[in-house]
């Protein structure tokens, strides 16, 4: 796979649109191109940002935030930070 073909696949990969049979070749090329491949994939995740930022923000509920913060602080009482997975 050429690097240009890899780039095309990488853009599909980050949005989860690579078909299973394409994934194997993609992963092989990813290894082949090493850091340049990883760097390009990271850049491709900018596509996610672009799609999200193209949306008009929705009104998020204050009640949801209060509930969230209550849960976080409750959990925080017994530990010093986010729990380990």
């Amino acid at each position: 796979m050429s690097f240009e073909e890899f780039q095309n696949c990488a853009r599909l990969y980050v949005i989860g649109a690579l078909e299973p049979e394409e994934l194997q070749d993609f992963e092989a090329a990813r290894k082949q191109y090493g850091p340049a491949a990883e760097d390009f994939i990271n850049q491709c995740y900018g596509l996610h940002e672009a799609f999200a930022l193209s949306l008009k923000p929705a009104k998020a509920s204050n009640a949801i935030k209060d509930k969230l913060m209550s849960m976080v602080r409750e959990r925080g009482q017994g530990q010093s930070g986010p729990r380990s997975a």
Partner: protein
Amino acid sequence: MSSVVDPNLQAAPGSEPDVATSEKSMTSAVDREPGAPSDVDLMLGIQSGDADALSQLYDRYSGIMKALILRIIHNETEADDLLQEVFMEIWNQAKNFSAEKGKALGWMVTLTRRRAIDALRKKQAYARAEERLQAEPERQPLAWVENATEKDIEAGDTRVLMAKVINSLPEAQQQVIELAFFQGMSQREIAFHTNIPLGTVKTRLELGLKKIYDGLKELRDEL
């Protein structure tokens, strides 16, 4: 056909944003008060267990995250529930974020989109969404523009710039990207859903994503 871009935020003819005035929002993703912590600062705060950092991150990005969730699952109550779950996951998984690997917003959007698409499929709403998409009348970009107020456009330079890049695509490419990104469909599912040959779906996706990627790169280089 549905567009990738939010209906209310398409760049109106004659209202193209001045790129120079958009630098602030491009570099910080959203406007923030002078002296306010950066996204990375907030993520580092969350990593160290600072709940106030999560509170600030919520204030900054909950609107965008909810819009993304709503775009995928189309249900206000479910979107609120999922938004809460997403921010809880951000709190729990913050240790996996590395500023060297990418921006905080990108990391959060990736996580949010995945959770929303998972929810869509788990609730077996996938088929219903498909039906809705098929039944949905074609929305006209001009009507969307008319719904956007000048204030919306001024306040959303980043969104307008992004919308401008995405809207420059042919509708056929926007359609397949919409189905892949916001509905989480595979190339085969898109081909089945649209009756377009698989090879054509792949070509349209590749061309569309490349144009968006190149457009964003150009935009960032200009800034």
